[in-house]
């Protein structure tokens, strides 16, 4: 404990960065478990317990990140202020990825099941795209690679338009209510996850005051 003072090691900010990547990867785990439930498994005690325990880990990591940022701000004063404010904003986005992934599990809980859906392949393709996006985002953030972050934001932006189109299409469909609601929410949650990943990525190249606007209409963005 006291000897920590004499040891060299990582800074609080570096620990925050590592935790954010861990949270994002945990978010991917929740997503995998949740989509597995709507694509065949349905609700199960094991899946429920997995989703809950990972979500608790994500929430605890969020609190740890905030504590570490507070410690860093107290010790370093204004030296790392932009970084601290950006991470304080970003940690909420990463936590929300887990939350929306958990909401997909709730769909299975309420009886949404895409196992026999006629367009199952298409629905799975959307699932795979988000899973890949989460993996890439974790990788890009860990490397703090601004060039790849730009590419990922452009790619994710296309997804947003697609999800919007699908939500609109589903709400106007005349199929069974449970199927329509299930699909609309599924696309809505995929859109939210994508938007939060975009916010995380934009924090690698945008100033603090311009964060959090990438889930809005392109015309309303700064």
């Amino acid at each position, binding site marked *: *404990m*006291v000897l*920590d003072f004499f040891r*060299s090691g990582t*800074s609080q900010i570096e620990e925050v960065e590592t935790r954010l990547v861990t949270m994002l990867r945990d978010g991917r785990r929740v997503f995998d478990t949740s989509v597995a439930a709507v694509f065949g498994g349905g609700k199960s005690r094991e899946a429920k317990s997995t989703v809950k325990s990972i979500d608790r880990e994500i929430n605890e990591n969020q609190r740890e990140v905030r504590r570490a940022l507070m410690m860093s701000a*107290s010790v370093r004063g204004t030296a790392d*202020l932009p970084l601290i404010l950006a991470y304080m904003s970003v940690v909420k986005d990463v936590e929300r990825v887990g939350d929306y992934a958990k909401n997909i599990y709730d769909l299975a809980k309420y009886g949404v099941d895409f196992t026999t859906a006629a367009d199952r392949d298409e629905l799975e393709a959307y699932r795979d795209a988000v899973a890949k996006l989460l993996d890439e985002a974790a990788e890009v953030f860990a490397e*703090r690679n*601004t060039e790849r972050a730009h590419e990922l934001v452009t790619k994710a932006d296309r997804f947003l338009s697609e999800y919007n189109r699908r939500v609109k299409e589903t709400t106007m469909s005349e199929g069974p209510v449970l199927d329509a609601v299930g699909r609309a929410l599924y696309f809505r949650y995929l859109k939210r996850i994508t938007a939060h990943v975009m916010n995380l990525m934009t924090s690698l190249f945008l100033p603090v005051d311009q964060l959090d606007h990438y889930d809005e209409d392109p015309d309303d963005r700064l």
Partner: protein
Amino acid sequence: MSRAQTAGSRMAGLPAPLRALVVVTLLYLFLGGVKLLETGIKGLGSDFTDGLFEGVTNPLAGLFVGVLATVLVQSSSVTTATIVGLVAGDVLSVSTAVPMIMGANIGTTVTNTIVSLTHLRRGEEFRRAFAAATMHDFFNVIAVAVLLPIEIVTGVLSGTAQSVASFIAGGQELGGSFNSPIKGAVAWLADQIEAIVLVPLLPNDRAIAVGAIILGISLIFVTLAYITKNMRILVADRIERSLNAALGRSGLIGMVVGTLVTISVQSSSITTSILIPLVASGILLVRNAYPVTLGANIGTTITALLAALGAGAIDGLTIAVTHTLFNIAGILLIYPWPATRFIPVAVAERLADVALERRQLAIGYVAVAFIVLPLVGVILL
């Protein structure tokens, strides 16, 4: 982060080895400043200096001078290093300087109390911050209230310090001097500054002596400020890690961490001011911050000890050791006993409750305790 943010936070500033070199250089200049102060005082002659501090032979007046001087420069390290220089230069006697050193301890707590006022607009946050800041005030006031009378009557602190100083200096008595590798190097620097800067510019010995005093105090002030600033950057990672490790652990660990952090940044105000936002935000409890604050009291005495080693006078070393002993004695007096341990915290929390209801009281407290009362004391005594 954006490129600008990354550049601003990580790339700005010097590489660590270069910054460490800057700190060593500043430390050398700081010691040179203390030596210059001592040289300047001696240059004025005893007929001038003997009457200079006649007014503060009253211990309470000395105490208030210590508080006021520290509030003014916002650093007990500057005050104590200057006092060491004055004692080494025979302007102040050890017995006159002891209350001043104690006053510096009280005065230094004004910084974190002011920091706590920045939370005024957010009730609960302010209550926690104000309690964390004022517990340091109350601890130091209680320690002075008990130890100053004991010191005046028995001279136990300065007597013990004299024995320690004499032991360090190989048996020299008060009024004597001792050699250390630091002293030789520092004396050379002071001589060079005097020969290159002061002698060509100033007309006579008295002007040179006054110039040496002004330059000495300026060097102490400026170098300490920059040492603190650079060390804070250099050891920020270590401070974060050790404070994290100390959170919620035993009081002794907190004290050691507080001491180490303060030694490394050469400022108790920095250590205690770091704690205020942590307590305000609820991450750290007032009671967990308390031992770290007490450790800061011990750590801050390193500056006067360094100054004394540079000055090379037994009297200077005695007052520096007295400062250390006073802070250790204060902790031993209050902290080990469950009945007294949390008195300063309890009083501070009570004051914070009252201040939360009437926030002008908090500002009034700072003004009265740190400015009005010491000022009136100095004028009347």
